[in-house]
C-alpha cells in the first residue's frame, strides 16, 4: 500500500468568525500519511482554528478540506473518525479510565471482549496498566494526559489531532511526554497534527513544522531546515534566538551581498529574500554562529563591547553592543578554562556570511 502524500489537504481555506476579519487566509497545506506535522505559531495566528476545522467543530468559510481524497466539510465530527487530544485533556470526569477509553469503542458497537483488548493495548502504550478503575480526578496531570492520548488512539483512527496537549504540564513532565508521544507516533505510524505555541516542543517532535502567523503558513519544513534556513524574518524571530540588523543591500555578488547597516557599518550576508541592490533588509544571525576571537578566517569580523554577562549553567550569554545593536546575544560554552569575559570588555566577534541571512525588512 503506497502512502498518500496528500492524506490531509487544505485547499485554499479561509475562515472568518465575524465576517469582518479573516482568521485563516487562503491556507494551502498538504500532510502526508504517517507524518507528524506541527502547527506552530503565536496565539491568534489561526493554528487552532485550522485544527478545529479539520476536526469538524468549525466550518471553513471558503475552500475545502480533504481527508484521504474525500471532501470532509459536510461530514459531522462524529463520523470523521479523527482522534483528538484536547488542551485540558477533556476526560469525562464521571467515568473511570476504563470507561473513558471504552467510550469510542462502545459507540462503535465493538464487542466487549474485543474492546477490553483494545483498551488494554492502549493503556499499555502509555504505560498506565492497572489504572482502569481510577477516576480522572485521582490521576496526576501527566497521567490524565496519557489517558487522553490513549483515548484518542484506542479506536485506531488514521489521524490524531492534538491541541496544545502538554500546555498544562510542568517543564520536566512536558519533556518526557514529548518523547513519549513521539515514540507512540513512530511505533504505530498514525498521522498526527499537533498544535503548539512552544517552539522547542515543535522542534523535538515533528517531521515537519508549519509556522503560522497572521492566518497564513509562513514556512512549512523540517525542524532543522526551519531553524537553519528560515525564509523570512518572522520565522527567524519566532524559532530560536536570533540577532538582527536592519540595513540596505548595497552590493550583490553571487551567494554574497554587502549590507550597509543603519549604524553605517558594512557586513557580508547571504541574500535570501532581499536579493537586489538598494533593497531594505533585516539580517538575521543565530547567536551560536557568532564566535569570539575566531581562529579560522571569517568574512565578517567586528569589534563589540560586552554590556552584560548572564550565567545560564551550561553556557553563558553575553549581551554585546555590536555595530549599533545593543541587544546582540552571544553564547559561549561553560568550559573550565573560562573566557575571561567581563562587562565593558572589548572583544572580536566573527561569523560567516552564509549563516547571516538577509531577509525581508521588519
Amino acid at each position: 500500500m503506497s502512502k498518500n502524500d496528500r492524506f490531509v489537504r487544505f485547499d485554499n481555506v479561509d475562515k472568518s468568525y465575524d465576517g469582518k476579519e479573516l482568521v485563516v487566509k487562503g491556507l494551502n497545506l498538504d500532510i502526508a500519511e504517517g507524518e507528524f506535522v506541527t502547527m506552530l505559531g503565536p496565539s491568534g495566528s489561526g493554528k487552532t482554528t485550522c485544527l478545529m476545522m479539520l476536526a469538524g467543530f468549525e466550518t471553513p468559510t471558503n475552500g475545502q478540506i480533504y481527508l484521504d481524497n474525500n471532501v470532509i466539510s459536510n461530514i459531522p465530527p462524529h463520523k470523521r473518525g479523527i482522534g483528538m487530544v484536547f488542551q485540558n485533556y477533556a476526560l469525562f470526569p464521571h467515568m473511570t479510565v476504563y470507561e473513558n477509553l471504552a467510550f469510542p469503542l462502545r459507540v462503535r458497537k465493538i464487542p466487549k471482549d474485543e474492546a477490553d483488548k483494545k483498551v488494554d493495548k492502549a493503556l499499555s502504550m502509555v504505560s498506565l496498566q492497572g489504572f482502569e478503575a481510577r477516576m480522572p480526578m485521582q490521576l496526576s496531570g501527566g497521567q490524565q494526559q496519557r489517558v487522553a492520548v490513549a483515548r484518542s488512539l484506542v479506536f485506531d483512527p488514521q489521524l490524531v489531532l492534538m491541541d496544545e496537549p502538554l500546555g498544562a504540564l510542568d517543564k520536566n513532565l512536558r519533556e518526557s511526554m514529548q518523547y513519549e508521544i513521539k515514540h507512540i507516533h513512530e511505533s504505530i505510524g498514525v498521522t498526527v497534527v499537533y498544535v503548539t505555541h512552544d517552539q522547542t516542543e515543535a522542534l523535538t517532535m515533528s517531521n515537519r513544522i508549519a509556522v503560522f502567523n497572521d492566518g497564513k503558513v509562513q514556512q512549512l519544513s523540517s525542524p532543522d531546515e526551519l531553524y537553519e534556513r528560515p525564509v523570512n524574518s518572522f520565522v527567524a524571530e519566532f524559532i530560536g534566538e536570533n540577532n538582527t540588523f536592519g540595513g540596505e543591500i548595497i552590493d550583490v555578488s553571487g551567494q554574497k551581498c554587502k549590507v550597509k547597516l543603519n549604524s553605517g557599518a558594512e557586513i557580508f550576508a547571504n541574500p535570501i529574500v532581499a536579493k537586489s541592490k538598494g533593497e531594505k533588509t533585516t539580517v538575521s544571525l543565530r547567536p551560536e554562529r557568532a564566535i569570539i576571537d575566531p581562529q579560522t578566517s571569517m568574512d565578517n569580523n567586528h569589534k563589540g563591547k560586552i554590556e552584560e554577562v548572564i550565567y545560564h549553567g551550561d553556557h553563558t550569554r553575553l549581551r554585546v553592543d555590536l555595530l549599533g545593536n545593543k541587544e546582540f546575544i552571544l553564547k559561549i560554552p561553560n568550559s573550565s578554562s573560562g573566557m575571561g569575559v567581563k562587562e565593558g570588555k572589548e572583544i572580536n566577534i566573527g561569523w560567516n556570511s552564509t549563516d547571516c541571512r538577509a531577509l525581508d525588512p521588519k
Partner: protein
Amino acid sequence: MSKEQILSSDGIPLEQSLKKAERKNKLKAVLLVAPLFLFILIIYVFPIGDMLFRSVDDRMITKMLPKTFIAIENWDGQDLPDEPVYKGLYEDLKFLKENKTYGKIIARLNYEKSGFSSLIKKTVRKISKFDEGNYKEQFIEVHKRWGQSEYLIALKNAAPNWSYAKYLKGVDMKFDQDRNIVLVEEDRRIYKILWMRTLNVAFWVTIFCFILAYPISHLLATLPMKYSNLLMICVLLPFWTSLLVRTSSWMVLLQQQGPINDLIVWLGLAADDSRPELMYNVIGTFVAMTQILLPFMVLPLYSVMKTISPSLMRAGKSLGGTPLVSFLKIYFPLTIPGIGAGCLLVFILAIGYYITPALVGGASGSLISNTIAYHMKSSLDWAFASALGTMLLVGVLAIYWVYNKLVGIDNIKLG
C-alpha cells in the same frame, strides 16, 4: 517503641503550644459566628421547637379540670363512675364558672365528642344551685348525658397531657371511643385529598420547571457573555419583582376576560360564551407557581452547566458519539448535581407554597399551606396547624433523606 513527646523550642509540648497559638483565632471565629448562631436559634430553632410542642400539647384541659381527671383515673370505664368523679367535676366547673373561663373546654370537649357543648353549657348554668353531696344524682338530673358512660369515657380520653390526635386528624383518622384509631366518616376525609393535591402540584411544578429550565440554563451557560447577561437578567427580573405583584399579574392574565382567554377565543379554540377557567383552580396554581419557581431551577442548573467544559462534548463527538449519545452519556450525567439541587429546591418550596395558591388557586387549587393558614388565622386551632406544619416538615425531611440515598447530598451543587 515509646512515643516521645515533641516539644517546641521553648520546652512546652508542641500540641499545647499549637493550641495556645490558635486560641485567639478560634475565639475570633466563634465571635464572628455567634450573631448568626443566636439569630438562627431565636428565629428558627425555637419556633420550630414550639411548633412541635404545640402540636402534641393537650394540657389545657387537664389544667382546667384537675380534680375531675385525678378522680377519673381510677375509673375502669365500664359502669358509671362513682361519686368522687362527679364531685371533682362539680368543683372544677364551679371554679371555672366563677372565673368565667369555661368557654375553652367546651370547644375541646366537643371535638372529643359532639354533644358536649350543650351539656357543659347547661350544667354550668345550673351549677350554682347544686347542693352539697350526692353530686352524681344532681348531675344526671341536670342533663341525662351525665348518666351515659360514653360521655364520661370521652372525658376520660381527654385526660392525657400529650396527644397525637391532631396528627391523626391530619390524615383523616381519629380515635373512636374505645381509643382505637379509625378513619373518619367518608364525607369528612378532606386531608388526604389535600395532601395528594399538594404533592401532585409540587411534583408537576418541579417537572415543568425542569423541562423549561434545562434548555434555558444550557443556553445561558454557552452563549457569549454579551447575550447571556441579558438572558440572565430576563430570568432574574421576575425574581426581583415582588411575589405578590407577579401573582397578581397572573390573575390579570388568566382571568376569564383576560388576554390569554381572549387569545384562545380569537384562535377559535373556545367559544366566547364558554371561556375556559384558567384561574381559581389547579391550572392557575400550576401556571403561576411554575413561573415563580423557575429561577430556583435555572440558577443551580446554570451554575453546574457553567463548570462543564465545552471540550467534553467535543471530545464525545470526536470519539464517535452522535450529538444525542454525547449528550446522554456525557453532558446529562454531569448536570445531575444541578438537576438534583434544582428539583429538591423547587419541590420543597412548592410543597409549602402559600401566597400563589391562595390567590389563584381557588378552592380546588388550594394546598396544605393554605389549610395551615386557615387554622392559624380563622379556626384558631393552633395545635392542628402545628401538627400539619410538623407533618410537612417531616415530609420534606423524608424527601431529603430519600434524595440523599438516591443521589447523595454531596452531589448537590448550588453554585
